[in-house]
């Protein structure tokens, strides 16, 4: 296979934005029939590179070759016409339209007077759907499909041309294991047809399972290509971040206090059922499971954002009713939400205003807000959390992900909560800040806070937690202590392979 000419080759691609060199001489090649992983931290230049490949951005220098012919891709259609198609991470489908209309979006077959040739449209779509081996038909409304099936529609879109290269951007982010199997079958099928596949993902297991080669980007620079069979996770991580990330197991043992929060048999419709756990003062309780396992929903229920259908919540041994975030906050519960930009921050507001938002009603002198009281809080937590900002007037939208997250954490610490729930603490945060946030979480526990950490990253959960609750499909599968947990039994638990609730 290796002697075949590459289907796609990049040579010295440079892309600059004002003040940033997003891509700095990136070169790599994609062979027919191979799955080629592209890895790198957030901000390493992956998405810029893909935009260049997809014809969305024009490079400042460098050359793209398709089947060894130099080409220029001026727009997504040009790229597609050359057989280079892109399967977006965020589904870009029109939910009210049919499967067929979505697959041929922007290129519906036409008759005279701009009429759509429905017969041809449905026939062509059926042909594509047959190769994908799916259960829905061309006329189904896309909004009625599951996420996995919607992804199949996206893939179907790539097959309207005879693709040479298909780019998958984090395709498994929201798929169940069974759905992943189907996706991998489709990828294997494309492989046998000689299509080259670029596979972008953060998930090492998948990368090692399905790819042939791995190329790594760091800081906009190409760092090398490894044969998957001849490397391991450590080497890839080293290439990605330039050093090893300290994600050793949590071994610290400090004194723990009484149970701060206890949940008994909590259910919320079909989102999660019969969930019980507790967390002590000074303890970090990890929640691990796949996206959609119900972890975030549990947090939201405890925070008063959802109405439980059954079960009890006990705070310091007292049963409490929590109907809104206002009540949760009053009881000393704080939530650092999963989606920082939509739920954690008001991006148009400055750093200080965001940090004091939950207690703004208390920081008053007479009828007016006291600047002095606000700044006292801001200054205290800026120093304590080492938030790097030019000043309190800075709009939070202009801060890095790590500093944004610290603002959200500071916002809640300044309220002196008893229980702090942190959902995906390091999503979209660069490596350096990642370990800072991890250390912060450990520190908070040491100071006596009860902390719940929800994460989809196993190393992170293992690194910060004293105990780990494994969830699958809305149920608690098993609870681990840091002594009895292994990567294997944790994966088994969150895949639903063990029904054993007892540790």
């Amino acid at each position, binding site marked *: 296979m290796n002697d075949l000419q590459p289907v796609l080759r990049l040579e010295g691609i440079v892309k600059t934005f004002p003040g940033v060199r997003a891509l700095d001489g990136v070169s790599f090649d994609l062979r027919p029939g191979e799955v080629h992983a592209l890895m790198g931290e957030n901000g390493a230049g992956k998405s810029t590179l893909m935009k260049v490949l997809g014809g969305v951005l024009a490079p400042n220098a460098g050359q793209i070759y398709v089947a060894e012919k130099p080409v220029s891709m001026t727009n997504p259609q040009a790229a597609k016409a050359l057989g280079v198609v892109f399967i977006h991470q965020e589904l870009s489908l029109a939910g009210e339209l049919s499967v067929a209309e979505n697959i041929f979006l922007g290129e519906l077959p036409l008759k005279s007077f701009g009429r759509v040739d429905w017969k041809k449209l449905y026939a062509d779509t059926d042909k594509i759907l047959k190769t994908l081996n799916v259960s829905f038909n061309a006329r189904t409304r896309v909004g009625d499909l599951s996420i996995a099936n919607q992804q199949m529609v996206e893939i179907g879109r790539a097959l309207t041309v005879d693709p040479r290269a298909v780019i998958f951007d984090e395709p498994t982010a929201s798929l169940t294991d069974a759905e992943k199997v189907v996706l991998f079958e489709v990828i294997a099928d494309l492989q046998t047809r000689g299509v080259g596949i670029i596979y972008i993902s953060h998930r090492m297991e998948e990368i090692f399972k399905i790819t042939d080669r791995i190329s790594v980007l760091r800081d906009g620079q190409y760092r090398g290509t490894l044969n998957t069979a001849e490397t391991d996770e450590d080497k890839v991580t080293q290439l990605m971040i330039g050093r090893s990330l300290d994600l050793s197991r949590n071994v610290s043992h400090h004194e723990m206090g009484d149970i701060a929060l206890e949940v008994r048999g909590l259910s919320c419709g079909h989102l999660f059922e019969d969930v019980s756990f507790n967390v002590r003062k000074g303890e970090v309780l990890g929640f691990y499971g796949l996206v959609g396992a119900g972890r975030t929903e549990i947090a939201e229920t405890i925070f008063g954002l959802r109405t439980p259908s059954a079960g009890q919540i006990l705070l310091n041994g007292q049963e409490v009713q929590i109907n809104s975030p206002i009540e949760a906050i009053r009881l000393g519960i704080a939530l650092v939400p999963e989606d920082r930009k939509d739920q954690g921050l008001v*991006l148009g507001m400055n750093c200080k205003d965001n940090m004091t*938002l939950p207690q703004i009603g208390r920081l008053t002198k007479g009828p007016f807000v006291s600047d002095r009281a606000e700044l006292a809080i801001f200054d205290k937590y800026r120093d304590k959390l080492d938030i790097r900002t030019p000043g309190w007037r800075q709009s939070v939208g202009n801060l890095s992900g790590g500093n944004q997250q610290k603002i959200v954490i500071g916002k809640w610490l300044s309220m002196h909560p008893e229980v702090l729930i942190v959902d995906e603490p390091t999503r979209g945060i660069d490596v350096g800040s990642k370990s800072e946030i991890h250390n912060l979480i450990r520190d908070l526990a040491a100071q006596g806070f009860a902390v719940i950490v929800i994460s989809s990253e196993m190393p992170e959960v293992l690194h910060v937690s004293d105990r780990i609750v494994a969830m699958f499909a809305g149920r608690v599968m098993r609870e681990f202590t840091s002594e009895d947990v292994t990567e294997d039994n944790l994966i088994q638990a969150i895949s639903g392979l063990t029904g054993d609730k007892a540790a």
Partner: protein
Amino acid sequence: MTVLTRQNLGSFLAKQGILIAFVLFMIGFAMVNQRFIAMDNISGVIRSSAILGVIAIGVTFVVIGGNLDLSVGSMMSFSTIVVLDLHDKIGPGLAIPAMFALTLLLGAFIGFLVGYLKLNSLIVTLGMLSAIHGLTLTWSGGKNMDIADKSGTWFSFFGQDRIMGIPVPILIFALLAAVLAMVLSRTSFGRKVYAVGGNGQAATFSGIPRARIVFMTYLISAFCVAVAGLLQASRSLGSQNTVGQGLELQVLAAVILGGASLLGGSGTVFKTVIGVLILGFIQNGLLLAGLDFYVQYMVTWAIIILAVWLDIAAKRGHLWSPIA
């Protein structure tokens, strides 16, 4: 480096463009006609802008909170008709509080629908525009409303009298603007309005009672409408049922001109007042320049488009839209 400075200049011009254009306008008009900057003319313009201005201040709260209010014009007709009708029936001393109570009730109803039931504010206030118009016509029986004894009532005080030489409508406008500017910029309630409009979900996640805040913005808007209705009724002591028709869109124009985003989360009372005054002075200046009143419509059109365009161009860094 020079490029950077030019960019900064560009963004400065874009941000302050509306003020700069305003100043140029004033200078231009003043050169064409000296009367334009005469004290009595300026006072006249502010006085005739007072009604629009008072309503615009209230709508500013609604817009910053992330909603729209298209019912204010219709609601002002209602307030005006009601207070005029009740004036002769129960006397001005009772008519004014009764009118305020009824107008606030309407505001509370809208606030309930938009805040607590979370219905789309554009459609709700569109429906209320029609419904309140019907209510007004039902109240008045479709006839014009007039105070019987126009010379013998102290009710004319609000719209016609002066205190220390300053017309009362200007004083009320200024007082309301000052108080509500403080509420919006200095109180915790004001902060919450910005948070709810800037990112309602994040506000909820921070324990801010979003529904109640939205509800309050509509109450404030209704209160301002009631004040405007009082000014209108007191000035003319008689009114048609459609006195406020079309006002909602002029008000929105002023608020947008002041730089508030219709998406919520930005704007200030001061800027809205500037927006109102710009509209007022342009109207006046064009009239004094001997141009017909409709020219101001077209000038307003151009100014709104240019102001908003410059604003978003400065934010995205390109003059032209990226839409293919």
